[in-house]
């Protein structure tokens, strides 16, 4: 039984990591007042382009493929894809002041479609499953710490047994929390999200902050999609694999109360809830009901937060609203 729990936690962490990226990115975006509902699309794009980058690198380099380069290519391709997607979103909503909800939904449709197109195209070209050579595959899936550390009882598997993206994700969330709490830039970013007119009157370049946070946030979210295809999906393109990840990330942002540190344990919890139906099946609960638990938890949190009315736990006050200086 003991081993089962450790295995369950490990699975939760691994499953939660794509969510951690997706959520951290969206927190950054939403802190600037942009509500980007295109996370689902961005994660699809990240997943497809990240896989594509490594796939062609693998083909070009053959046996001489370098692990570090492969990981960098995966991150870079997915990051750039996500940034390109959220740049479109930013241009439409920040510069042209289009409705954020509509634009975000459009981005989801666009991103899912583009990701599918790229992924399926590769699959058809190679005539089967898009997969990279086994030598590179393990680079993404295996733990980064030495074997000896991984084999320490209990602590080893719990803390040191994961692939590199788990640690990168935690570092990103922690750095983000630090920046928001302790630096001037973080204070300005929060100010832009709370009240752009106040930030503007204080001489802060609202447009630049919104663009920066939204574009980078979208990029980080997209890396989450890559992490999913490269680790959980085993570097194989599967056209339904990523479905729903982006939406859970959006829900998780609310669950975490827009705080990056909460995203770390929140994503592990949600990662666990998502796989509970496989790991801990309970006969009389249909798996469909089991699968909606993350959404129910989010709804409950939303209700509790709204009832408590604690000012610090509320969404950024200008979330979803366009800003135009000369509006009267």
């Amino acid at each position, binding site marked *: 039984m003991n081993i089962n729990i450790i295995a369950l936690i490990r699975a939760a962490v691994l499953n939660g990591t794509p969510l951690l990226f997706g959520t951290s990115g969206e927190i950054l975006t939403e802190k600037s007042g942009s509500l980007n509902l295109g996370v689902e699309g961005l994660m699809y794009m990240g997943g497809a382009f990240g896989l594509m980058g490594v796939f062609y690198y693998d083909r070009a380099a053959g046996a001489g493929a370098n692990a570090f380069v492969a990981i960098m290519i995966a991150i870079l391709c997915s990051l750039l894809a996500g940034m390109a997607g959220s740049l479109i979103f930013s241009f439409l909503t920040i510069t042209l002041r289009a409705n954020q909800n509509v634009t975000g939904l459009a981005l989801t449709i666009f991103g899912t479609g583009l990701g599918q197109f790229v992924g399926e195209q590769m699959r058809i070209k190679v005539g089967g499953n898009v997969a990279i050579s086994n030598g590179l595959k393990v680079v993404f899936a295996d733990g980064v710490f030495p074997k000896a550390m991984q084999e320490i009882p209990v602590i080893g598997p719990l803390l040191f047994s994961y692939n590199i993206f788990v640690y990168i994700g935690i570092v990103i969330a922690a750095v983000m929390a630090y920046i928001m709490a302790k*630096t001037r830039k973080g204070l300005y970013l*929060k100010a832009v999200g709370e*009240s752009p*007119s106040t930030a*503007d*009157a204080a001489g802060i370049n609202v447009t630049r902050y919104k663009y920066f946070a939204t574009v980078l946030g979208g990029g980080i979210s997209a890396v989450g999609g890559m992490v999913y295809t490269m680790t959980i999906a085993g570097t194989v393109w599967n056209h339904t694999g990523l479905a729903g990840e982006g939406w859970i990330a959006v829900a998780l942002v609310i669950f975490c109360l827009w705080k990056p540190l909460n995203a770390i344990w929140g994503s592990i919890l949600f990662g666990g809830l998502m796989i509970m139906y496989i790991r801990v099946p309970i006969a009389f609960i249909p798996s469909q009901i089991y699968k909606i638990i993350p959404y129910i938890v989010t709804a409950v949190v939303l209700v509790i937060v709204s009832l408590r*009315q604690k*000012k610090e736990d509320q969404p950024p006050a200008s979330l979803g609203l366009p800003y135009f200086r000369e509006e009267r």
Partner: protein
Amino acid sequence: MENHAIEFRGITKRFGSVTANNNVDLYVDKGTIMSLLGENGSGKTTLMNMLAGIYMPDEGQIYVDGKPVSILSPKDAFDNGVGMIHQHFKLIDVFTAAENVALGINEGKYDLKDVAAKVTEICNKYGFDIDPAKKIYDMSVSEKQTVEIIKVLYRGANTLILDEPTAVLTPQETSKLFSIMKTMKEDGKAIIIITHKLNEVMEISDVVAVLRKGEHIATVKTSETNPQQLTEMMVGRAVELDIARKDPVNPVPRLTISNLTCRNSDGVVKLNNVSFVANGGEILGIAGIAGSGQKELLEAVAGLNKIDSGSIIYTPEGKEPAELVGLSPMKIKEAGVALAFVPEDRLGMGLVGGMGMTGNMMLRSWNKGKGPFIDRKGPEKLAADVFEFLEVKTPHIDYPVRKLSGGNVQKVLVGREIATSPSVLMSAYAVRGLDINTSYVIYDLMCEQKEKGTAVVFVGEDLDVLLQLCDRILVLCGGEVSGIVDARTTTKEEIGLLMTSVGGKEEN
């Protein structure tokens, strides 16, 4: 000769086809308090926003300390030593005072303790009292305003612009603000204050600049002018500044409210055991610091707020008394109780921003008309009447009200409520932000209603007006009635004291 602190030369600003400022020449000197007077839409705020970097002038040149400058953003304004305290505070609720002050300052190391220490230093110098670690949402309006002023001083501003700073303050807070303004003036700062209240203009300023329809009419020394002359300059013709208050004729109880208690949605008691009588043929003023329960009281009577306990007995003319508690808002309205509430953001309650005047008039009569079709003719005529009688400045009556200036939005709202010829007319902040001329039009309308035998309940902010307009004044403090006084015999100080104390319980 010393340079002017600020000088405008030939400033013009247009919004589409509307000219907000036309060829304005104006200057203010160091160590001077200048009042900027003008009706709504005369371009005062627009002019100041150009100085603060919110808008850019289309033509003309601004000089700071004798040097031509181009102020393209709020940051440029700060760099030139200009700071503006906006009417709607530019503060972030979830931040502390120190964090708000630190916004936009990029010099030096980011250390909030350092900021807090400097804030305390400024407080000591000018006599403020603010805890730098206090969150904005925990602050009173007056404290928020203080933070705004500290923000500007922290950046080393030499010129301060205050946009209607006293609109939300109690008399005591206002006099405190004025003494601070005088300290700053002695410190050599140039201060521009935008206000509608002539008594304040006379009290605080050294010079008065008058704008009318976007043009600079004149700048006069306060000591050489009087309210009557200023009003004439503002409006462009002679205006009667007295409210024709007649003695109430045969007042009969119209609304009898006893032991009314209400909570808001969070369960906080907003009205506690409120009892009073509103008589027909009488104007009952309601005074109190913003948020003392004025809104809840009116909403409770109108049936919009849930009532915990107590009763509201309504006695229409020549009919049997009836209990209003428990009736739907629609029934209460049909019985003749009208509510004209002007919220802080004028569009928040009562008007639909995207619709024109006609559409908004229709909101009162949507359930009338034959069959499934609404009646357009009535509201159209009403809109045309309000347009003409209250001189609403709009391109045409179907122009979205959201795009009108604040004062004009209000005219639409108040005009509509009065037009229903109610037997109880409740209005809150009916003249909030309105210029003198329009305010008096509204006061006259209230008096007219009173003479018709209507019970008028008037929630107001300006105590001078309450004293002149009302017959009796009820003072609310923290949701309780702290006193009902006769408007003809009471004083501003007495009301001010009642506003901050309830049954001996002092509030800071």
